[in-house]
């Protein structure tokens, strides 16, 4: 009995060394920004001489983070899905396993793949209490942004972007590829000002179902992301 447990301990020790030798864990952080400064929920941002906006709610899924080095697979995020919630700073960071510290590009999706979408109700960050599963139809919202602006002639000047849809012809998951130089850990900037530069919220301010507008808005999203060295 004693011999056996010694063997097991030895084996576990060896195994952990092997794993350690092959892979290292790293973190990847998303930094929510507005015009390159940290985003503050509820803060009034001027967007012109007379107009301003505030962002009250921001949540989005990032999935399948994958690292490449010279075109070859170099690692991935530990969790397949990651939900970034502007209200929870812990959610800005996720852990990844890298073969070694070297990588020169990173790819990920904004939103969830159709296989995950089709599976419906799931747990963890996909739990419906995350407020990212539609209630009146099936499917997850990939990117949810809400706030107010003097530009919106809606009730209480609200804008509401619930961007989702995974079935043809309204697919809204978007892929992002960022290049990265150096070997330090990665910080990814997500600048919301880019969103409002690209989308005229006096015209398009309420998108809450899979449709043409949702696809149009989703195509803007990759432009929000940029990589910085830490």
């Amino acid at each position: 009995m004693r011999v056996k447990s010694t063997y097991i301990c030895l084996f576990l020790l060896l195994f952990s060394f092997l794993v350690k030798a092959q892979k290292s864990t790293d973190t990847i952080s998303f930094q929510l920004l507005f015009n390159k400064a940290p985003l503050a929920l509820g803060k009034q941002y001027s967007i012109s001489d007379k107009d301003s906006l505030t962002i009250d709610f921001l949540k989005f899924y990032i999935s399948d983070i994958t690292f490449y080095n010279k075109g070859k697979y170099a690692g991935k995020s530990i969790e397949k899905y990651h939900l970034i919630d502007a209200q929870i700073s812990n959610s800005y960071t996720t852990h990844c396993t890298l073969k070694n510290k070297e990588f020169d590009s990173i790819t990920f999706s904004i939103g969830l793949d159709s296989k995950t979408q089709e599976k419906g109700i799931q747990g963890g960050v996909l739990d419906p209490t995350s407020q990212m599963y539609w209630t009146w139809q099936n499917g997850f919202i990939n990117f949810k942004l809400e706030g107010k602006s003097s530009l919106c002639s809606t009730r209480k000047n609200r804008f509401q972007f619930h961007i989702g849809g995974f079935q043809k012809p309204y697919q809204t998951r978007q892929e992002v590829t960022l290049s990265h130089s150096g070997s330090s850990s990665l910080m990814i900037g997500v600048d919301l000002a880019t969103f409002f530069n690209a989308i005229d919220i006096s015209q398009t301010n309420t998108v809450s179902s899979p449709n043409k507008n949702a696809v149009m808005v989703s195509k803007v999203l990759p432009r929000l992301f940029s990589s910085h060295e830490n």
Partner: protein
Amino acid sequence: MKIKTILVGLGILCTAVYCGVKKNVLQTPEYFPVPHYNFNNNPTSEAKIKLGNNLFYDPLLSANNTISCASCHSPYASFAHTDHDLSHGIYDSIGTRNAPPLFNLAWQDRFMWDGAIDNLDAQALAPISHATEMGSSINEVVAKLKAHPKYPGLFKGIYKDTLITGERVLKVLAQFQLSLLSSDSKYDRVQKGTASFTTKEISGYNIFTSNCASCHAEPLFSTFRFANNGLEVDPILNDIGRQKITLNSRDSLHFKIPSLRNLKYTFPYMHDGRFNTLREVLKHYTQKIKNSPTLSPELKNGISLTKNQQTDLIAFLATLNDRDFIISQKHQINKSFFTNTEGN
């Protein structure tokens, strides 16, 4: 060697238990097709069904604790809402569609009259959140369940911890709904060889197969696809049906084809509950089909049936009423759960 044998044995045992559990609840007749529902994502158990039953009958699911699922889906109406053309929700709100009956749901791939939801687990989110149904949210429901004197223990009995999540609540609710199996009508007994049709019923069956079966296919009595059955559009509701979901004009006025089982209990009929009797329904199909670009091709020329043929058809449809399903105790409210709630 020994460990290997034990592991293999354990594997076989687990598989056997797992399959046993899977078959246990849905004891479906062999003439039923393979269910659509993916049980691997939500294996069935009696404990889940019992807990799902409690949730189904619990008004805690609504914002002001007045409306339960059973408010609009009564067991005595085959889980539809007798006498209510449109659904009747929180604060006396009236919805825009008729509450459909609930049975044989494992064979259906889309829910709601417009098929907005393709996943039974997710379906309950709609009534829980809708302002004119339960006016709550899954977050609110989870919070109330966590604070409840009984529910945490019941969840622990199933999931081995007291954690109550949105996923668990919805999957447990789905379990109860999956257990609503209607397969004991006279029609079913004829299929099983323990009863036989009368001459009138046989005549009705023949009329059914040549006029109705392309949409209301046996043995579930629906293809569960979507079709425009030629109803005049209600000018107040102005409901375009499935087009609202697909945004495709070809789906204009398409609604989910309902099963013809249990019609005795599920009146009024149609997506807006406009007809109170089967005679009115047949009058529609034989005389009042409204032509439009999306009308079901089978109905282009209406259905031609004499009064006697209609009587025979109705006699056949009556063989699809499943009284045992309606009175089955296991589908009813568990009164002791609600009367003995401490702290209320």
